[in-house]
Protein backbone atom coordinates (compact mmCIF):
# COMPACT_ATOMS: atom_id res chain seq x y z
CA UNK A 1 0.00 0.00 0.00
CA UNK A 2 1.22 3.48 -0.81
CA UNK A 3 1.27 5.63 2.29
CA UNK A 4 -1.42 8.34 2.10
CA UNK A 5 0.00 11.76 1.30
CA UNK A 6 -1.60 13.23 4.40
CA UNK A 7 0.30 10.89 6.71
CA UNK A 8 3.55 11.72 4.96
CA UNK A 9 2.82 15.44 5.10
CA UNK A 10 2.18 15.40 8.85
CA UNK A 11 5.34 13.41 9.52
CA UNK A 12 7.47 15.61 7.26
CA UNK A 13 6.12 18.84 8.71
CA UNK A 14 6.59 17.84 12.36
CA UNK A 15 9.99 16.35 11.73
CA UNK A 16 11.04 19.63 10.15
CA UNK A 17 10.54 21.47 13.44
CA UNK A 18 12.01 18.77 15.60
CA UNK A 19 15.50 20.17 15.48
CA UNK A 20 14.28 23.72 15.07
CA UNK A 21 17.70 25.28 15.51
CA UNK A 22 19.11 23.35 12.59
CA UNK A 23 16.00 24.11 10.57
CA UNK A 24 16.27 27.84 11.29
CA UNK A 25 19.91 27.92 10.28
CA UNK A 26 19.12 26.16 7.02
CA UNK A 27 16.12 28.40 6.41
CA UNK A 28 18.32 31.44 6.99
CA UNK A 29 20.82 30.11 4.47
CA UNK A 30 18.16 29.48 1.83
CA UNK A 31 16.59 32.87 2.51
CA UNK A 32 19.88 34.71 2.14
CA UNK A 33 20.72 32.65 -0.94
CA UNK A 34 17.37 33.40 -2.60
CA UNK A 35 17.70 37.05 -1.67
CA UNK A 36 21.19 37.24 -3.15
CA UNK A 37 20.04 35.50 -6.33
CA UNK A 38 17.17 37.87 -6.94
CA UNK A 39 18.66 41.08 -5.58
CA UNK A 40 21.96 40.80 -7.42
CA UNK A 41 20.22 39.70 -10.59
CA UNK A 42 17.99 42.79 -10.43
CA UNK A 43 21.09 45.00 -10.08
CA UNK A 44 22.86 43.32 -12.98
CA UNK A 45 19.71 43.44 -15.09
CA UNK A 46 19.28 47.08 -14.24
CA UNK A 47 22.81 47.83 -15.35
CA UNK A 48 22.55 45.94 -18.62
CA UNK A 49 19.05 47.28 -19.27
CA UNK A 50 20.34 50.80 -18.92
CA UNK A 51 23.20 50.06 -21.31
CA UNK A 52 20.89 48.50 -23.88
CA UNK A 53 18.20 51.14 -23.58
CA UNK A 54 20.85 53.77 -23.86
CA UNK A 55 22.33 52.01 -26.84
CA UNK A 56 18.94 51.78 -28.48
CA UNK A 57 18.16 55.40 -27.69
CA UNK A 58 21.39 56.55 -29.19
CA UNK A 59 20.49 55.34 -32.68
CA UNK A 60 19.09 52.01 -33.74
CA UNK A 61 15.53 52.15 -32.33
CA UNK A 62 13.81 48.75 -32.19
CA UNK A 63 13.32 47.93 -35.86
CA UNK A 64 14.77 49.44 -39.03
CA UNK A 65 14.00 49.20 -42.74
CA UNK A 66 16.86 49.43 -45.22
CA UNK A 67 17.76 48.80 -48.82
CA UNK A 68 18.98 45.17 -48.82
CA UNK A 69 22.52 46.28 -49.70
CA UNK A 70 22.64 49.28 -47.38
CA UNK A 71 24.29 47.54 -44.43
CA UNK A 72 27.16 46.33 -46.61
CA UNK A 73 27.51 49.59 -48.43
CA UNK A 74 25.78 52.47 -46.65
CA UNK A 75 26.10 54.79 -49.62
CA UNK A 76 23.48 56.96 -51.23
CA UNK A 77 22.93 54.46 -54.06
CA UNK A 78 21.41 51.98 -51.64
CA UNK A 79 18.51 54.14 -50.57
CA UNK A 80 14.74 53.65 -50.20
CA UNK A 81 11.71 55.52 -51.45
CA UNK A 82 9.65 57.37 -48.87
CA UNK A 83 7.24 55.05 -46.93
CA UNK A 84 4.37 53.70 -49.04
CA UNK A 85 0.69 54.00 -48.05
CA UNK A 86 0.69 50.40 -46.85
CA UNK A 87 3.72 50.96 -44.64
CA UNK A 88 2.29 54.19 -43.29
CA UNK A 89 -0.81 52.26 -42.17
CA UNK A 90 1.36 49.73 -40.34
CA UNK A 91 3.29 52.55 -38.70
CA UNK A 92 0.04 53.97 -37.33
CA UNK A 93 -0.71 50.75 -35.39
CA UNK A 94 -0.71 50.56 -31.60
CA UNK A 95 2.53 48.60 -31.35
CA UNK A 96 4.48 51.48 -32.86
CA UNK A 97 5.37 54.13 -30.31
CA UNK A 98 7.24 56.37 -32.73
CA UNK A 99 8.93 56.24 -36.12
CA UNK A 100 11.03 58.45 -38.33
CA UNK A 101 12.96 58.46 -41.56
CA UNK A 102 16.64 59.24 -41.93
CA UNK A 103 19.31 59.77 -44.50
CA UNK A 104 22.52 58.26 -43.23
CA UNK A 105 25.66 58.34 -45.37
CA UNK A 106 29.42 58.43 -44.89
CA UNK A 107 30.87 61.90 -45.28
CA UNK A 108 33.85 64.04 -44.43
CA UNK A 109 33.70 67.05 -42.15
CA UNK A 110 36.34 69.78 -42.29
CA UNK A 111 37.02 72.67 -39.98
CA UNK A 112 39.76 75.14 -40.74
CA UNK A 113 42.03 72.98 -38.58
CA UNK A 114 41.27 69.38 -39.37
CA UNK A 115 38.99 67.04 -41.24
CA UNK A 116 37.58 63.65 -40.36
CA UNK A 117 35.51 60.87 -41.86
CA UNK A 118 32.13 60.71 -40.15
CA UNK A 119 28.56 59.53 -40.59
CA UNK A 120 26.19 62.26 -41.67
CA UNK A 121 22.66 61.66 -40.42
CA UNK A 122 19.79 63.65 -41.85
CA UNK A 123 16.91 63.55 -39.42
CA UNK A 124 13.42 64.82 -38.88
CA UNK A 125 14.20 66.59 -35.59
CA UNK A 126 10.63 66.49 -34.27
CA UNK A 127 10.02 62.77 -34.85
CA UNK A 128 13.55 61.93 -33.83
CA UNK A 129 13.03 63.36 -30.34
CA UNK A 130 10.76 60.48 -29.37
CA UNK A 131 13.20 57.87 -30.68
CA UNK A 132 16.69 58.96 -29.73
CA UNK A 133 17.94 60.96 -26.82
CA UNK A 134 20.49 63.16 -28.59
CA UNK A 135 18.22 66.20 -28.23
CA UNK A 136 18.31 65.75 -24.43
CA UNK A 137 22.08 65.57 -24.33
CA UNK A 138 22.97 68.92 -25.86
CA UNK A 139 25.91 70.29 -23.92
CA UNK A 140 26.26 73.55 -25.82
CA UNK A 141 24.05 75.46 -28.23
CA UNK A 142 20.78 73.91 -29.43
CA UNK A 143 19.41 70.84 -31.17
CA UNK A 144 17.92 70.99 -34.69
CA UNK A 145 14.41 72.40 -34.77
CA UNK A 146 12.74 71.18 -37.97
CA UNK A 147 13.25 69.31 -41.24
CA UNK A 148 14.51 72.42 -42.98
CA UNK A 149 16.96 73.56 -40.32
CA UNK A 150 20.24 74.64 -41.88
CA UNK A 151 22.32 74.02 -38.78
CA UNK A 152 24.59 71.12 -37.85
CA UNK A 153 24.85 69.34 -34.51
CA UNK A 154 28.08 67.46 -33.81
CA UNK A 155 29.48 65.55 -30.83
CA UNK A 156 31.45 67.45 -28.21
CA UNK A 157 34.36 65.07 -28.67
CA UNK A 158 34.41 65.69 -32.42
CA UNK A 159 34.35 69.44 -31.87
CA UNK A 160 37.42 69.11 -29.72
CA UNK A 161 39.18 67.05 -32.40
CA UNK A 162 38.30 69.57 -35.08
CA UNK A 163 39.12 72.41 -32.74
CA UNK A 164 35.81 74.08 -33.50
CA UNK A 165 32.74 75.21 -31.58
CA UNK A 166 29.12 76.30 -32.00
CA UNK A 167 28.77 79.34 -34.22
CA UNK A 168 31.66 78.33 -36.45
CA UNK A 169 31.27 77.03 -39.98
CA UNK A 170 32.43 73.66 -41.25
CA UNK A 171 32.26 71.96 -44.63
CA UNK A 172 30.56 68.60 -45.07
CA UNK A 173 31.41 66.63 -48.15
CA UNK A 174 29.85 63.45 -49.57
CA UNK A 175 28.85 61.89 -52.91
CA UNK A 176 25.66 62.44 -54.86
CA UNK A 177 23.91 59.57 -56.78
CA UNK A 178 26.09 60.26 -59.84
CA UNK A 179 29.24 59.79 -57.76
CA UNK A 180 29.91 63.51 -57.97
CA UNK A 181 31.23 65.38 -54.98
CA UNK A 182 28.48 67.17 -53.11
CA UNK A 183 29.59 69.62 -50.45
CA UNK A 184 28.10 72.34 -48.40
CA UNK A 185 28.99 74.71 -45.61
CA UNK A 186 27.13 74.33 -42.32
CA UNK A 187 27.07 76.43 -39.21
CA UNK A 188 27.47 74.36 -36.06
CA UNK A 189 24.47 75.13 -33.88
CA UNK A 190 24.96 72.66 -31.07
CA UNK A 191 27.15 70.02 -29.47
CA UNK A 192 25.82 66.79 -27.98
CA UNK A 193 27.24 64.25 -25.59
CA UNK A 194 26.80 60.50 -25.80
CA UNK A 195 27.61 57.75 -23.32
CA UNK A 196 29.57 55.96 -26.00
CA UNK A 197 32.48 58.17 -26.90
CA UNK A 198 32.99 56.67 -30.38
CA UNK A 199 29.49 57.77 -31.26
CA UNK A 200 30.21 61.31 -30.16
CA UNK A 201 33.21 61.38 -32.44
CA UNK A 202 31.74 59.97 -35.62
CA UNK A 203 28.09 60.94 -35.90
CA UNK A 204 26.82 64.37 -36.94
CA UNK A 205 23.24 65.50 -37.40
CA UNK A 206 21.64 67.79 -39.96
CA UNK A 207 18.02 68.27 -40.98
CA UNK A 208 16.76 65.56 -43.34
CA UNK A 209 15.50 67.81 -46.14
CA UNK A 210 18.70 69.81 -46.09
CA UNK A 211 20.74 66.64 -46.53
CA UNK A 212 18.41 65.33 -49.27
CA UNK A 213 18.88 68.58 -51.15
CA UNK A 214 22.64 68.50 -50.68
CA UNK A 215 22.88 64.96 -52.02
CA UNK A 216 20.36 65.51 -54.81
CA UNK A 217 18.37 62.48 -53.74
CA UNK A 218 14.83 63.88 -53.89
CA UNK A 219 12.75 62.33 -51.14
CA UNK A 220 14.79 59.11 -51.04
CA UNK A 221 15.90 58.01 -47.57
CA UNK A 222 18.44 55.59 -46.10
CA UNK A 223 16.32 54.08 -43.38
CA UNK A 224 13.04 54.01 -41.53
CA UNK A 225 13.52 53.63 -37.79
CA UNK A 226 10.71 52.36 -35.58
CA UNK A 227 10.33 52.31 -31.81
CA UNK A 228 8.06 49.64 -30.29
CA UNK A 229 6.79 49.11 -26.78
CA UNK A 230 9.32 46.72 -25.28
CA UNK A 231 12.85 46.28 -26.52
CA UNK A 232 12.92 42.71 -25.19
CA UNK A 233 10.03 41.66 -27.38
CA UNK A 234 10.34 43.03 -30.89
CA UNK A 235 9.66 39.91 -32.96
CA UNK A 236 5.95 40.64 -33.55
CA UNK A 237 6.67 44.23 -34.41
CA UNK A 238 9.39 43.10 -36.82
CA UNK A 239 6.97 40.71 -38.52
CA UNK A 240 4.23 43.33 -38.80
CA UNK A 241 6.59 45.82 -40.38
CA UNK A 242 8.09 43.18 -42.65
CA UNK A 243 4.71 42.34 -44.13
CA UNK A 244 3.89 45.99 -44.75
CA UNK A 245 7.26 47.05 -46.14
CA UNK A 246 8.18 46.79 -49.83
CA UNK A 247 9.54 43.42 -50.94
CA UNK A 248 12.97 44.65 -51.92
CA UNK A 249 13.73 45.98 -48.42
CA UNK A 250 15.42 44.52 -45.39
CA UNK A 251 13.56 44.73 -42.03
CA UNK A 252 15.68 43.91 -38.98
CA UNK A 253 15.30 44.10 -35.19
CA UNK A 254 17.88 45.92 -33.10
CA UNK A 255 19.64 42.73 -31.96
CA UNK A 256 20.71 42.11 -35.54
CA UNK A 257 21.44 45.71 -36.34
CA UNK A 258 23.67 46.09 -33.32
CA UNK A 259 25.06 42.64 -32.65
CA UNK A 260 27.08 43.94 -29.71
CA UNK A 261 23.96 45.02 -27.84
CA UNK A 262 22.11 41.88 -28.90
CA UNK A 263 24.87 39.64 -27.62
CA UNK A 264 25.02 41.57 -24.38
CA UNK A 265 21.41 40.63 -23.63
CA UNK A 266 22.07 36.96 -24.38
CA UNK A 267 25.26 36.93 -22.31
CA UNK A 268 23.32 38.51 -19.47
CA UNK A 269 20.67 35.80 -19.58
CA UNK A 270 23.40 33.17 -19.36
CA UNK A 271 25.11 35.06 -16.59
CA UNK A 272 21.93 35.21 -14.49
CA UNK A 273 21.53 31.45 -14.87
CA UNK A 274 25.11 30.75 -13.83
CA UNK A 275 24.86 33.13 -10.89
CA UNK A 276 21.72 31.39 -9.58
CA UNK A 277 23.26 27.95 -9.99
CA UNK A 278 26.49 28.98 -8.25
CA UNK A 279 24.63 30.31 -5.22
CA UNK A 280 22.55 27.18 -5.19
CA UNK A 281 25.69 25.01 -5.16
CA UNK A 282 26.85 26.83 -2.04
CA UNK A 283 23.46 26.13 -0.47
CA UNK A 284 23.33 22.52 -1.57
CA UNK A 285 26.09 21.47 0.82
CA UNK A 286 24.14 22.80 3.78
CA UNK A 287 20.96 21.21 2.52
CA UNK A 288 22.54 17.81 1.96
CA UNK A 289 24.20 17.98 5.37
CA UNK A 290 20.93 18.89 7.11
CA UNK A 291 19.14 15.96 5.54
CA UNK A 292 21.94 13.48 6.15
CA UNK A 293 21.94 14.47 9.81
CA UNK A 294 18.17 14.08 9.95
CA UNK A 295 18.35 10.63 8.40
CA UNK A 296 21.06 9.54 10.85
CA UNK A 297 19.11 10.76 13.84
CA UNK A 298 15.99 8.94 12.77
CA UNK A 299 17.34 5.56 11.69
CA UNK A 300 15.36 3.73 14.37
CA UNK A 301 12.04 5.29 13.56
CA UNK A 302 12.69 4.74 9.86
CA UNK A 303 13.10 1.05 10.70
CA UNK A 304 10.01 1.16 12.89
CA UNK A 305 7.84 2.71 10.19
CA UNK A 306 9.03 0.09 7.73
CA UNK A 307 8.41 -2.70 10.22
CA UNK A 308 4.88 -1.40 10.70
CA UNK A 309 4.27 -1.72 6.97
CA UNK A 310 5.26 1.60 5.42
CA UNK A 311 6.85 0.97 2.07
CA UNK A 312 10.31 2.39 1.33
CA UNK A 313 8.69 4.91 -1.02
CA UNK A 314 6.79 6.31 1.97
CA UNK A 315 10.11 6.98 3.72
CA UNK A 316 11.61 8.51 0.56
CA UNK A 317 8.66 10.88 0.03
CA UNK A 318 8.76 11.87 3.69
CA UNK A 319 12.31 13.17 3.45
CA UNK A 320 11.71 14.71 0.04
CA UNK A 321 8.69 16.53 1.38
CA UNK A 322 10.66 17.74 4.38
CA UNK A 323 13.27 19.15 2.00
CA UNK A 324 10.50 20.67 -0.11
CA UNK A 325 9.04 22.45 2.92
CA UNK A 326 12.47 23.71 3.85
CA UNK A 327 13.08 24.98 0.32
CA UNK A 328 9.71 26.64 -0.19
CA UNK A 329 9.69 28.39 3.18
CA UNK A 330 13.25 29.63 2.65
CA UNK A 331 12.44 30.73 -0.90
CA UNK A 332 9.22 32.42 0.21
CA UNK A 333 10.97 34.55 2.80
CA UNK A 334 13.90 35.13 0.44
CA UNK A 335 11.59 36.33 -2.34
CA UNK A 336 9.77 38.71 -0.04
CA UNK A 337 13.05 40.03 1.34
CA UNK A 338 14.44 40.54 -2.18
CA UNK A 339 11.37 42.35 -3.48
CA UNK A 340 11.14 44.42 -0.31
CA UNK A 341 14.76 45.49 -0.58
CA UNK A 342 14.64 46.24 -4.31
CA UNK A 343 11.38 48.24 -4.40
CA UNK A 344 12.74 51.23 -2.46
CA UNK A 345 15.79 51.27 -4.75
CA UNK A 346 13.83 51.37 -7.99
CA UNK A 347 13.94 55.15 -8.05
CA UNK A 348 17.66 54.71 -8.66
CA UNK A 349 20.90 54.11 -6.80
CA UNK A 350 23.41 56.92 -7.09
CA UNK A 351 26.69 55.50 -8.32
CA UNK A 352 28.52 58.76 -8.90
CA UNK A 353 31.40 57.51 -6.75
CA UNK A 354 32.19 54.79 -9.24
CA UNK A 355 30.50 56.47 -12.19
CA UNK A 356 33.63 57.02 -14.24
CA UNK A 357 34.17 53.31 -14.75
CA UNK A 358 30.49 52.73 -15.41
CA UNK A 359 30.34 55.42 -18.05
CA UNK A 360 33.11 53.68 -19.95
CA UNK A 361 30.94 50.57 -20.08
CA UNK A 362 28.10 52.61 -21.53
CA UNK A 363 26.01 52.86 -18.39
CA UNK A 364 24.76 55.94 -16.61
CA UNK A 365 25.79 57.02 -13.14
CA UNK A 366 22.44 56.06 -11.65
CA UNK A 367 21.60 52.38 -11.38
CA UNK A 368 17.96 51.40 -11.66
CA UNK A 369 17.51 47.81 -10.41
CA UNK A 370 15.29 45.86 -12.78
CA UNK A 371 13.24 43.13 -11.15
CA UNK A 372 11.93 40.70 -13.75
CA UNK A 373 9.24 38.20 -12.80
CA UNK A 374 10.94 35.76 -15.17
CA UNK A 375 14.18 35.99 -13.16
CA UNK A 376 12.34 35.38 -9.90
CA UNK A 377 10.57 32.38 -11.39
CA UNK A 378 13.85 31.07 -12.81
CA UNK A 379 15.59 31.37 -9.41
CA UNK A 380 12.76 29.59 -7.61
CA UNK A 381 12.47 26.81 -10.15
CA UNK A 382 16.21 26.19 -10.14
CA UNK A 383 16.36 26.06 -6.35
CA UNK A 384 13.36 23.74 -6.08
CA UNK A 385 14.48 21.35 -8.81
CA UNK A 386 18.15 21.21 -7.87
CA UNK A 387 17.20 21.20 -4.17
CA UNK A 388 14.99 18.17 -4.61
CA UNK A 389 17.69 16.44 -6.66
CA UNK A 390 20.17 17.10 -3.85
CA UNK A 391 17.70 15.69 -1.31
CA UNK A 392 17.12 12.62 -3.37
CA UNK A 393 20.39 11.03 -2.26
CA UNK A 394 19.87 11.17 1.53
CA UNK A 395 16.15 10.40 1.12
CA UNK A 396 16.91 7.40 -1.04
CA UNK A 397 19.47 6.18 1.49
CA UNK A 398 16.89 6.47 4.26
CA UNK A 399 14.43 4.36 2.30
CA UNK A 400 17.02 1.64 1.74
CA UNK A 401 17.63 0.86 5.41
CA UNK A 402 16.97 -2.72 6.35
CA UNK A 403 14.24 -2.55 9.02
CA UNK A 404 15.88 -5.17 11.26
CA UNK A 405 19.23 -3.40 11.24
CA UNK A 406 17.60 0.00 11.66
CA UNK A 407 15.55 -1.05 14.69
CA UNK A 408 18.45 -2.71 16.45
CA UNK A 409 20.74 0.28 15.80
CA UNK A 410 21.97 1.66 19.11
Amino acid sequence: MQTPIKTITILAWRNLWRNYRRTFIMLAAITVGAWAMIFMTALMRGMVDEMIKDGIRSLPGHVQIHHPLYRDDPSITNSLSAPSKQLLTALKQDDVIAWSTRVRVPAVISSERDSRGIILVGIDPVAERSITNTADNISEGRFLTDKLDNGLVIGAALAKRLDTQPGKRVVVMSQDPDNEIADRGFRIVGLYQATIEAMEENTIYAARDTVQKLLKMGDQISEVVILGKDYRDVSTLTENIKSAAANDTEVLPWQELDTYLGTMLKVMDGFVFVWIVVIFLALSFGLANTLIMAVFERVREIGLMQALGMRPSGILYQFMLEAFFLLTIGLGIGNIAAVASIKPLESGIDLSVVAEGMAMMGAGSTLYPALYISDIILANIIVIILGLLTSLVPAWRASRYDPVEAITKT
Partner: protein
Amino acid sequence: MTAISCKALCRTFQQGEVKITGLDQVTIDIDDGEFVCLSGPSGSGKTTLLNAMGGLDTPDSGQITVNSQRIDHLSKGEMADMRLHKIGFVFQAYNLIPVLTAQENIEFVMQVQGVPATKRHIKSLEVLKEVGLEGAADRLPSQLSGGQQQRVAVARAIVSKPTLILADEPTANLDTKTASQLMDLFVELNRHHKITFVISTHDQRIMTYARRLIKMQDGKIISDEKLSSAIQ
Protein backbone atom coordinates in the same frame (compact mmCIF):
# COMPACT_ATOMS: atom_id res chain seq x y z
CA MET B 1 -7.05 -22.61 12.28
CA THR B 2 -3.34 -22.20 12.01
CA ALA B 3 -2.22 -18.62 12.45
CA ILE B 4 1.36 -19.24 11.41
CA SER B 5 3.26 -22.25 10.32
CA CYS B 6 7.06 -22.48 10.00
CA LYS B 7 8.75 -25.41 8.30
CA ALA B 8 12.46 -26.18 8.55
CA LEU B 9 13.58 -22.58 8.85
CA CYS B 10 17.33 -22.01 8.58
CA ARG B 11 19.12 -18.71 8.88
CA THR B 12 22.84 -18.12 9.14
CA PHE B 13 24.69 -14.86 9.55
CA GLN B 14 28.08 -14.19 8.11
CA GLN B 15 30.29 -12.19 10.43
CA GLY B 16 33.61 -11.78 8.68
CA GLU B 17 34.99 -15.31 8.31
CA VAL B 18 32.67 -16.76 10.91
CA LYS B 19 29.30 -18.31 10.14
CA ILE B 20 26.80 -17.81 12.94
CA THR B 21 23.72 -19.96 13.19
CA GLY B 22 20.60 -17.92 13.88
CA LEU B 23 18.00 -20.59 13.14
CA ASP B 24 18.58 -24.27 12.61
CA GLN B 25 15.72 -26.34 11.16
CA VAL B 26 12.97 -24.63 13.14
CA THR B 27 9.49 -26.02 12.65
CA ILE B 28 6.43 -24.80 14.57
CA ASP B 29 2.71 -24.29 14.07
CA ILE B 30 0.79 -21.75 16.09
CA ASP B 31 -3.00 -21.82 16.12
CA ASP B 32 -5.35 -18.89 16.29
CA GLY B 33 -5.89 -17.68 19.83
CA GLU B 34 -2.75 -19.25 21.28
CA PHE B 35 -0.61 -17.51 23.88
CA VAL B 36 2.96 -18.58 23.25
CA CYS B 37 6.13 -17.71 25.13
CA LEU B 38 9.40 -18.10 23.33
CA SER B 39 12.16 -18.51 25.86
CA GLY B 40 15.85 -19.14 25.80
CA PRO B 41 19.11 -17.50 26.71
CA SER B 42 20.39 -14.44 24.94
CA GLY B 43 21.63 -15.36 21.48
CA SER B 44 19.46 -18.47 21.20
CA GLY B 45 17.64 -17.20 18.11
CA LYS B 46 14.38 -15.77 19.53
CA THR B 47 14.64 -12.44 17.74
CA THR B 48 15.73 -14.12 14.53
CA LEU B 49 12.69 -16.38 14.64
CA LEU B 50 10.25 -13.55 15.40
CA ASN B 51 11.72 -11.43 12.61
CA ALA B 52 11.30 -14.30 10.19
CA MET B 53 7.72 -14.91 11.31
CA GLY B 54 6.88 -11.24 10.97
CA GLY B 55 8.41 -10.86 7.53
CA LEU B 56 11.12 -8.46 8.66
CA ASP B 57 13.83 -10.90 7.65
CA THR B 58 13.92 -13.66 5.08
CA PRO B 59 15.28 -17.07 6.13
CA ASP B 60 17.84 -18.85 3.95
CA SER B 61 15.56 -21.85 3.57
CA GLY B 62 12.25 -23.20 4.84
CA GLN B 63 8.66 -22.14 4.47
CA ILE B 64 6.54 -19.66 6.40
CA THR B 65 2.80 -19.54 5.95
CA VAL B 66 0.79 -16.78 7.61
CA ASN B 67 -2.95 -17.24 7.45
CA SER B 68 -2.41 -19.75 4.60
CA GLN B 69 -0.29 -17.30 2.57
CA ARG B 70 3.32 -18.19 1.83
CA ILE B 71 5.49 -15.22 2.83
CA ASP B 72 9.03 -16.50 2.43
CA HIS B 73 9.53 -15.29 -1.11
CA LEU B 74 7.53 -12.06 -1.24
CA SER B 75 9.08 -8.90 -2.67
CA LYS B 76 10.05 -6.06 -0.32
CA GLY B 77 6.86 -4.14 -1.02
CA GLU B 78 4.60 -7.19 -0.71
CA MET B 79 6.35 -8.04 2.54
CA ALA B 80 5.60 -4.52 3.82
CA ASP B 81 1.94 -4.98 2.92
CA MET B 82 1.89 -8.37 4.64
CA ARG B 83 3.26 -6.82 7.84
CA LEU B 84 0.83 -3.94 7.56
CA HIS B 85 -2.24 -6.17 7.42
CA LYS B 86 -1.37 -9.36 9.25
CA ILE B 87 1.25 -8.68 11.91
CA GLY B 88 1.27 -6.55 15.02
CA PHE B 89 4.72 -5.79 16.42
CA VAL B 90 5.75 -4.82 19.92
CA PHE B 91 9.47 -4.27 20.25
CA GLN B 92 11.65 -4.02 23.29
CA ALA B 93 11.98 -0.24 23.05
CA TYR B 94 11.55 2.73 20.71
CA ASN B 95 8.18 1.47 19.62
CA LEU B 96 6.62 4.83 18.90
CA ILE B 97 7.14 7.54 16.31
CA PRO B 98 8.40 10.50 18.37
CA VAL B 99 6.56 13.26 16.48
CA LEU B 100 3.14 11.62 16.75
CA THR B 101 0.88 11.63 19.83
CA ALA B 102 -0.24 8.40 21.46
CA GLN B 103 -3.47 8.42 19.51
CA GLU B 104 -1.72 9.31 16.24
CA ASN B 105 0.76 6.49 16.80
CA ILE B 106 -2.15 4.08 17.13
CA GLU B 107 -3.80 5.54 14.05
CA PHE B 108 -0.57 5.37 12.05
CA VAL B 109 -1.03 1.77 10.94
CA MET B 110 -4.70 2.37 10.08
CA GLN B 111 -3.71 5.49 8.19
CA VAL B 112 -1.21 3.57 6.07
CA GLN B 113 -3.92 0.96 5.56
CA GLY B 114 -6.24 3.65 4.27
CA VAL B 115 -8.89 3.42 6.98
CA PRO B 116 -11.18 6.50 6.91
CA ALA B 117 -10.56 9.18 9.55
CA THR B 118 -13.74 8.84 11.60
CA LYS B 119 -13.36 5.10 11.89
CA ARG B 120 -9.72 5.59 12.90
CA HIS B 121 -10.59 8.02 15.66
CA ILE B 122 -13.26 5.80 17.12
CA LYS B 123 -11.11 2.67 17.03
CA SER B 124 -8.00 4.35 18.39
CA LEU B 125 -9.88 5.78 21.38
CA GLU B 126 -11.45 2.37 21.93
CA VAL B 127 -8.10 0.57 22.15
CA LEU B 128 -6.55 3.36 24.23
CA LYS B 129 -9.28 2.69 26.77
CA GLU B 130 -8.65 -1.03 26.50
CA VAL B 131 -4.98 -0.59 27.44
CA GLY B 132 -5.93 1.83 30.23
CA LEU B 133 -4.62 5.06 28.68
CA GLU B 134 -7.82 6.94 27.84
CA GLY B 135 -6.40 10.16 29.29
CA ALA B 136 -3.12 10.04 27.37
CA ALA B 137 -4.41 10.34 23.80
CA ASP B 138 -2.75 13.67 23.05
CA ARG B 139 0.56 13.01 24.75
CA LEU B 140 3.76 12.61 22.80
CA PRO B 141 5.88 9.50 23.46
CA SER B 142 8.39 11.65 25.36
CA GLN B 143 5.60 12.55 27.79
CA LEU B 144 4.80 8.90 28.53
CA SER B 145 6.50 6.48 30.94
CA GLY B 146 8.17 3.33 29.62
CA GLY B 147 5.20 1.19 30.64
CA GLN B 148 2.74 3.59 29.05
CA GLN B 149 4.78 3.62 25.83
CA GLN B 150 4.63 -0.17 25.68
CA ARG B 151 0.87 -0.04 26.24
CA VAL B 152 0.47 2.38 23.35
CA ALA B 153 2.56 -0.02 21.25
CA VAL B 154 0.26 -2.87 22.25
CA ALA B 155 -2.78 -0.76 21.40
CA ARG B 156 -1.32 -0.02 17.97
CA ALA B 157 -0.51 -3.70 17.44
CA ILE B 158 -4.06 -4.89 18.18
CA VAL B 159 -6.05 -2.04 16.65
CA SER B 160 -6.39 -3.44 13.15
CA LYS B 161 -6.95 -7.02 14.32
CA PRO B 162 -3.89 -8.71 12.79
CA THR B 163 -3.51 -12.46 12.51
CA LEU B 164 -0.89 -12.48 15.21
CA ILE B 165 1.06 -10.22 17.52
CA LEU B 166 4.80 -10.67 17.84
CA ALA B 167 6.34 -9.16 20.95
CA ASP B 168 10.12 -9.35 21.24
CA GLU B 169 11.11 -9.03 24.90
CA PRO B 170 8.44 -6.37 25.48
CA THR B 171 9.14 -6.20 29.21
CA ALA B 172 12.92 -6.11 29.12
CA ASN B 173 13.12 -2.37 29.78
CA LEU B 174 10.39 -2.29 32.44
CA ASP B 175 10.49 -2.67 36.21
CA THR B 176 8.93 -5.85 37.66
CA LYS B 177 5.61 -4.31 38.56
CA THR B 178 5.09 -2.60 35.23
CA ALA B 179 6.25 -5.75 33.46
CA SER B 180 3.65 -7.93 35.16
CA GLN B 181 0.95 -5.32 34.48
CA LEU B 182 1.86 -5.46 30.78
CA MET B 183 1.75 -9.27 30.85
CA ASP B 184 -1.65 -9.11 32.53
CA LEU B 185 -2.80 -6.92 29.68
CA PHE B 186 -1.51 -9.44 27.11
CA VAL B 187 -3.31 -12.28 28.89
CA GLU B 188 -6.51 -10.30 29.05
CA LEU B 189 -6.43 -9.33 25.40
CA ASN B 190 -5.78 -12.94 24.50
CA ARG B 191 -8.67 -14.14 26.63
CA HIS B 192 -11.28 -11.57 25.65
CA HIS B 193 -10.44 -10.99 22.02
CA LYS B 194 -8.81 -14.30 21.13
CA ILE B 195 -5.77 -12.40 19.84
CA THR B 196 -2.81 -14.67 19.07
CA PHE B 197 0.40 -13.73 20.90
CA VAL B 198 3.97 -14.86 20.49
CA ILE B 199 6.11 -13.26 23.18
CA SER B 200 9.84 -13.80 23.50
CA THR B 201 11.59 -13.44 26.83
CA HIS B 202 14.47 -14.73 28.86
CA ASP B 203 12.79 -13.72 32.11
CA GLN B 204 11.62 -16.71 34.21
CA ARG B 205 8.70 -14.81 35.74
CA ILE B 206 7.27 -13.88 32.37
CA MET B 207 7.32 -17.51 31.28
CA THR B 208 4.86 -18.33 34.03
CA TYR B 209 2.20 -16.52 31.99
CA ALA B 210 2.61 -18.86 29.05
CA ARG B 211 0.08 -21.47 28.08
CA ARG B 212 2.54 -22.83 25.59
CA LEU B 213 6.24 -22.50 26.24
CA ILE B 214 8.77 -22.97 23.48
CA LYS B 215 12.39 -23.15 24.55
CA MET B 216 15.20 -22.35 22.18
CA GLN B 217 18.92 -22.87 22.26
CA ASP B 218 21.55 -22.30 19.56
CA GLY B 219 18.87 -21.63 17.00
CA LYS B 220 17.03 -24.86 17.66
CA ILE B 221 13.77 -25.58 19.44
CA ILE B 222 14.67 -27.82 22.36
CA SER B 223 11.23 -28.12 23.94
CA ASP B 224 7.64 -27.19 23.15
CA GLU B 225 5.05 -27.83 25.86
CA LYS B 226 1.49 -26.86 26.72
CA LEU B 227 1.15 -25.64 30.32
CA SER B 228 -1.97 -25.76 32.36
CA SER B 229 -0.46 -23.97 35.34
CA ALA B 230 -0.21 -20.65 33.49
CA ILE B 231 -1.32 -17.46 35.25
CA GLN B 232 -4.76 -16.70 33.86
